[in-house]
């Protein structure tokens, strides 16, 4: 027979390493790698798959490569995950996972570094004598969490200070490319018409990001001519602008006079873009290439590629329902009325419906709100709504036949119904804010966030956006309830920080509770115990503590002699009776004792009476 022998080839820093420390280091490293995989997962791979692959590989490496230093494996894996995170996550063009995951990766990375340091220290022989306790998991956990919290808080303090010095306000980015004609680029290309007889193809592709301190609708183009099947514009001319030129503000754009300034830094994430998006009433644009401006304020740039960054500064008037109602008496300029208040092509029943809906409304604002409310009650939102047959007015079909549609049909209907009542209105396409990074506040705008809404012109205020789609319920399910997992993901940072704070506070709180419990355990309970404690305190004032063998009666007699007050003798007897007698003293005797003790406690400490 051949004896089989197995040789241990474990690296010295693994020998004697506590199991909990190895497990914690493996878990933290796997979490860091998994998060990097989650963040950097390419489009065709689910983020969860990226997490599992990353954490699985690292777990196998840390546990399996036993002949290599566990610190070296963990640190190498951490730096590899950092490289993956930066190269394929932060710099890939679309950070789909958001800042929370990056923050979680940072915390995991700090924990890995702390645990690696502890593993390094553990590999040294202990200074402790035989039998002394080793490092405790709770201490290591508190250290790791404490350092992670410090690093995150410091990063949160430093980041706003450093932000102005990092990156340029405008960047050229990559050259524009027409390779991907079917990608999100289509939604950023300038167009002269909007066909309402085709169904939109909305995807999750990120088209641009917006760094702004507030959420708003990011306007692209406007349309004012409706032919029953598509939108076009009456004036498609351009005014060229050179870098540094101020934007031309149209006479109808009264919002540009407002004092409320909105600054947006937008970065293009698709291969080709022309339309410069921004909040309504843009007054300044900072971009490194030529721009053309339409009379309606729409900005069209020379083709932009991925990474192109520009800044738009918009202004707006403060609005309220009352102000909009109050402006109703103001005049509407002829140019605005001629271009935007003309009755578009519509069927008779649409015209009749417009009159019917707004019959009770007295102001322009109330008329628009009445149209919104009517649509909110009668129509539903659905991307699967039937398309209007050839030769049929799309608005008529939507309002009376299908009663289902998407934002373009809903907003078009509002514009048509408003114009039927002589209200200046136009259709606007652009994007709405949906996903804001809770860490950085940057809005991620995807192709599915493409939207159409209406703008109505008010005297003294100018163009005011109305989004009738917001009042329309979804076809089928009213609302998709948020899952628990989704809620946890949305609040990951708050939950993690809360858990860290709780973990850090757990130790001190537990120690305080223990001290409090111990104090309560030694606190006298019952009249006899409380009174004997008072007697003890009295004796301590004359440096005569009660001996272990002394009863309250004996101690009272001693104190009576020392303090020269015979009443203390009976005090001791009453205390013993209260504690041990079959018939305890009545309340009156207890009150007498309390009075005696109160007398003695109130007076200044007397010199003890010394026997001669």
């Amino acid at each position, binding site marked *: 027979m051949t004896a089989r022998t197995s040789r241990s080839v474990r690296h010295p820093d693994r020998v004697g390493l506590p199991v909990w420390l190895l497990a914690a280091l493996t878990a933290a490293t796997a979490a860091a790698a998994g998060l990097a995989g989650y963040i950097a997962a390419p489009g065709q791979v689910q983020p969860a798959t990226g997490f599992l692959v990353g954490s699985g590989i690292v777990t196998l490496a840390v546990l399996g490569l036993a002949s290599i230093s566990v610190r070296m494996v963990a640190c190498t894996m951490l730096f590899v995950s950092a490289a993956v995170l930066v190269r394929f996550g932060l710099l*890939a063009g679309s950070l789909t996972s958001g800042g929370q995951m990056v923050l979680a990766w940072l915390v995991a990375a700090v924990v890995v570094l702390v645990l690696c340091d502890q593993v390094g220290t553990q590999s040294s022989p202990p200074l402790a004598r035989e039998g002394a306790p080793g490092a405790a998991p709770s201490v290591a956990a508190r250290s790791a969490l404490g350092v992670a919290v410090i690093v995150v808080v410091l990063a949160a303090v430093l980041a706003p200070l450093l932000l102005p010095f990092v990156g340029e306000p405008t960047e050229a980015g990559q050259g524009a490319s027409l390779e991907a004609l079917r990608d999100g680029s289509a939604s950023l290309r300038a167009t002269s018409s909007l066909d309402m007889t085709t169904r939109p193809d909305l995807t999750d592709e990120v088209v641009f990001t917006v760094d702004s301190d507030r959420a708003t609708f990011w306007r692209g183009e406007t349309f004012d001519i409706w032919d029953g099947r598509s939108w076009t514009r009456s004036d498609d001319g351009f005014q060229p602008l050179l870098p540094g030129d101020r934007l031309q503000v149209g006479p109808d754009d009264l919002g540009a006079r407002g004092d409320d300034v909105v600054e947006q830094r937008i970065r293009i994430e698709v291969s080709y873009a022309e339309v410069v998006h921004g909040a309504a009433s843009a007054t300044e644009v900072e971009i490194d290439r030529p721009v053309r401006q339409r009379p309606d304020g729409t900005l069209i740039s020379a083709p932009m590629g991925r990474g192109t960054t520009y800044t738009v500064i918009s202004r707006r008037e403060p609005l309220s329902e009352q102000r909009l109602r109050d402006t109703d008496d103001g005049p509407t300029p002829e140019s605005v009325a001629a271009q935007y208040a003309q009755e578009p092509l519509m069927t008779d029943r649409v015209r009749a419906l417009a009159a019917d809906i707004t019959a009770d409304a007295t102001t322009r604002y109330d008329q628009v709100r009445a149209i919104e409310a009517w649509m909110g009650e009668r129509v539903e939102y659905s991307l699967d709504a039937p398309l209007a047959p050839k030769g049929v007015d799309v608005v008529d079909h939507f309002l009376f036949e299908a009663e289902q549609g998407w934002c373009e049909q809903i907003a078009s209907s509002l514009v048509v119904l408003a114009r039927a009542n002589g209200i200046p209105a136009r259709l606007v396409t652009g994007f709405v804010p949906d996903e804001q990074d809770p860490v950085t506040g*940057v809005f991620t705008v995807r192709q599915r966030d493409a939207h159409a809404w209406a703008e109505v012109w008010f005297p003294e205020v100018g163009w005011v956006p109305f989004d009738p789609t917001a009042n329309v319920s979804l076809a089928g399910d009213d609302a998709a309830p948020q899952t628990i997992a989704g809620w946890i993901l949305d609040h990951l940072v708050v939950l993690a920080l809360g858990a860290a704070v709780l973990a850090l506070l757990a130790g001190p709180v537990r120690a305080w509770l223990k001290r409090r419990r111990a104090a309560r355990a030694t606190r006298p309970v019952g009249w006899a115990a409380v009174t004997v404690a008072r007697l003890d305190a009295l004796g301590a004032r004359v440096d005569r503590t009660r001996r272990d063998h002394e009863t309250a009666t004996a101690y009272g007699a001693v104190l009576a002699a020392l303090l020269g007050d015979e009443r203390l003798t009976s005090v001791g007897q009453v205390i013993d009776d209260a504690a041990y007698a079959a018939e305890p003293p009545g309340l009156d005797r207890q009150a007498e004792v309390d009075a005696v003790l109160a007398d003695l406690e109130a007076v200044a400490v007397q010199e003890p009476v010394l026997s001669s």
Partner: protein
Amino acid sequence: MSNRRRPYDKVGGARLTGIGTAVLIALIYGLASPPDATDRQILVIVWSALLAAFVVGVVWPLLVVRRIEVEASSPRDAFVGQQVPIDVGVSGITRSCEVRVLDPTSAWHRVASASEGIIDHLADRRGLFQHLRVEVRVTAPLGILAAHQVHDVQLPFAVEVAPRALAVDWLPAPAPLEGGAGDVSPASLGGDLVRSVRPYAPGDPSHLVHWPSTARMGSLVMRELEPPTPIGQAVVVDLRDLGPEEEQAASYALGAALAVLSAGGELVLCTAEATGPVTGRVRTPIDAGRRLARAVAGQPGEPPTGWPIVEIGS
């Protein structure tokens, strides 16, 4: 323990570890050429977190290592080549720090929860040592910087490191004790021959009562014994001008001293110490080791007159 010396194993100072160097390179690279990212804010947060981690990882150990106090004690006697158990106590913020003894450099020992313990330290040189250098290292919490602090610890008792004794076959010669060192005590109560008797004096041991004379005299009479013929040696150790052979001479001297003592002989060591020439009786091997631990190159003490002398050294 691995014998490979890592860069941060140098004594004293503070230096970045491999992780720290990698973090610093990433920081500098990020600052010099900030990459073009989708969300520059998240990039700044990552860079800020890296900077925060670097700052914490550098400042923390530098602060902590200066707040650590070290004390140490050692057995008084040792010999060259012996692993001496040094009792090291560490106080202050001792979590996750490491200590080692220098001269020569011992292995790092972690100070986790206990604040004192034993470090075996090699006594590699003969001599009298009043101080001990103990080095503290802190890499916590992130292992980015290794901060070292060397403490020159005053020992409560000086360590006297004796030379390693060479095996010497030595037979001491008869020594005229009365004519020699003045501190040689008369052996009136020791020996093996009865020389005479005398009346009892308080304090005399009972086993020396001479019972026949006591019976005759009616009072206690004590025996006085003749001591054996004394043997001894005066060893003169002159370490001057020996160069690299100085330690070998000290080792030989200790071997000779031990040979004399093991043969039951009296020993007088004549050496030179830092305070000057010293001549003195040595009764135990430990005393011999201590004398030779203190011995330096210089004029040795004069040997007592009439003693057989052996001179070691130049």
